[in-house]
């Protein structure tokens, strides 16, 4: 989403070696098989090319991907709007009565937006409140920890590659695994409670106390994704010309001043990317928290996406219209956030 130009430097040795391994493993049979397929495809393609000319073949190559995009992204986007303006329980738009903005009116029917209990669709607004709280806490801790980690990893330390890998590896884990790993540690008779009783404390039921449940949701999310943001910041740090630091060293500038005056201002574009990405992901939080807490206790960690999922798929009466309206609202928020990112990075690039 940010700097795409860098991906030209991808001709790394590992990819080549992976490929050669794959090729050897697959052996000549795979090669021959692919070759036959290619020859078979080539016959109609050649005919087509003779018919429309070689320049228009671009459309043919573009077609499959764009067909997938329209079928699974753009058409759904339109249908989503249709859904949100219709009622009933049917999944098929033709059997759904037009209800105008009723779904939205229902969704936004609130005594006070600061008190979810006063809303008709209180779960949605609890979701909004929880997501907001989650996003803010997550953003602050994510930026803080990934910045500190990136700064430290950028120092002259032994075993940098190892430490970088350590912080990075949870990024590869699936949300289900991340949640289960922590659930196992945090459960009533888990490792953490064993530690607590060993130092003379009391067992804490982390998933029964709303505050703790939210705390661990944020913690686990930061644990899992910190490495990703650290990498973005680290790339930014390494792009800062070392002459600047050498000059600062000549002047015997104190460390904190170098950090404040050189490092952070020059890192700002990467920090913006990190902040906006963390916001966009925070707003869409679902899987880790869902597996970890199930949205509980009660609705203490119920997020907007979980509300949408449950309204449409996991409740007794599948209310597709309401779920669609809620996801349109979520989509507008995401769109505004993306727009903010684009303007911020664009302005940065222009100046």
């Amino acid at each position: 989403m940010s700097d795409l130009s860098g991906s030209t430097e991808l001709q790394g040795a590992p990819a080549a070696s992976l490929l050669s391994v794959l090729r050897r493993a697959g052996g000549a049979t795979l090669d021959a098989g692919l070759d036959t397929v290619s020859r078979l495809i080539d016959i109609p393609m050649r005919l087509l090319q003779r018919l429309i000319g070689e320049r228009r073949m671009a459309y043919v190559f573009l077609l499959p991907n764009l067909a997938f995009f329209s079928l699974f992204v753009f058409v759904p986007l339109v249908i989503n709007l249709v859904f949100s303006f219709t009622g009933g329980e049917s999944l098929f738009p033709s059997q759904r009565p037009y209800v105008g903005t009723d779904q939205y009116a229902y969704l936004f029917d609130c005594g006070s937006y600061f008190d979810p209990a006063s809303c008709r669709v209180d779960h949605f607004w609890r979701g909004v409140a929880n997501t907001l709280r989650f996003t803010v806490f997550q953003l602050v801790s994510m930026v803080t920890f990934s910045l500190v980690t990136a700064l430290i990893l950028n120092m002259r330390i032994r075993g940098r590659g190892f430490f970088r890998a350590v912080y990075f590896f949870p990024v590869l884990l699936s949300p289900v695994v991340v949640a289960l790993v922590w659930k196992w540690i945090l459960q009533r008779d888990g490792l953490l409670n064993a530690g607590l009783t060993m130092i003379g404390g009391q067992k804490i039921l982390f998933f029964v106390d709303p505050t703790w449940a939210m705390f661990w949701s944020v913690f686990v999310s930061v644990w899992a994704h910190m490495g990703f943001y650290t990498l973005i910041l680290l790339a930014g740090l390494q792009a800062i010309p070392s002459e600047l630091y050498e000059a600062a060293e000549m002047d015997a500038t104190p460390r904190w001043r170098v950090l404040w005056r050189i490092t952070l201002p020059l890192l700002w574009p990467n920090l913006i990317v990190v902040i906006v990405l963390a916001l966009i992901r925070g707003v869409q939080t679902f899987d880790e928290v869902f597996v970890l807490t199930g949205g509980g206790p009660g609705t203490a960690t119920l997020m907007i996406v979980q509300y949408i999922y449950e309204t449409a798929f996991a409740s007794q009466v599948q209310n597709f219209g309401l779920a669609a309206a809620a996801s349109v609202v979520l989509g507008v928020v995401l769109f505004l956030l993306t727009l903010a990112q684009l303007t911020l990075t664009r302005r940065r690039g222009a100046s």
Partner: protein
Amino acid sequence: MRPIQLLSARHRAGRWHWTDIAAYAYLALGVVLMFAPVVWLVLSSFKTQASLLEFPPKLLPLSQQEVRVQGFPQPLPLFAATLDNGERRELAQVRRIGLIAQMVDPADPKQQYRVPTARLVAVRHLSFATSNYTEPLQKFAFTRYLWNSVFVTVIATLITLLINSMAAYALSIYEFRGKTIAMLIVIGTLMIPITIILVPVYLVVTKLGLVNSLWAVILPGAATPTGVFLLRQYMLTLPRDLIEAARMDKASEWQIYWRIVMPLAAPALAVLAIFSVMWRWNEFLWPLAVLTRTESFTLQIGLNAFQGELQTQWNYLLAMTVVSLIPVALVFVFLQRFIATGIANTGMK
């Protein structure tokens, strides 16, 4: 990558600034915090159900040693007992009556002792409960889930590689009317995550008659904007002369794509393949919405369903979680450095 001194260069002189010590302390803490949970998962996955229920938990998968004693049909648990005269012996427990245990000497079954349970210490030995791994694969549908996950991952990655590279080829090699619009479409899809079109995609999949089929998981995510960008960016760097020369030789456009551009784009294809495998293997929300029958569950959905049951069988759950970790662990070990640079360059994962 040349290390750049971040704060200042005192370190070079061999003197330690307090920030250096703080940095190493932070990193050490990080290693524990990042690795310990997963190590704990793996260790726990080898424990028997009985030792998983123990509190406080033991670090290693230990289980009590049992011995067969003549005259007893069942194997008996072994304890180190301190006898009344202060002597320490290894005895097998026959039965326990209140606070007194009736013990027998395994070497000499006629010798019986009565020992207060307070003076018994279980004799434990390291044993790995591999049945945690084998049983769920036989008793539950985990083999099925595993197969489903592998199928989805492999097929989806192949489709993604094919259609994304075709689009990238069109967008990098040709000049044609509507190219800008096509690029805008690709950028546009970057901004529309599945979370906001969950319901209508479900409708499309239903119309196609794919609900509960693995194709419902494979198809919607097959065309990735990330993949198109990644491959296009790489293909732009390929020499045009080669393509022109092939055209001179009467190669068809398809042949140029398949025989010249694809092999040259292999490094970028490998990156996309790795990304795609990770995405597909770990995917959660969409499969959760669209797969409702157990026989079509992927591993992630199966794990989630298993943990949601009232009586969670943690020994099986932990072991299966470890199984679902294996491909990820392999990718990490072999390609970590490589993905790291990929992510740092593209800002995407």
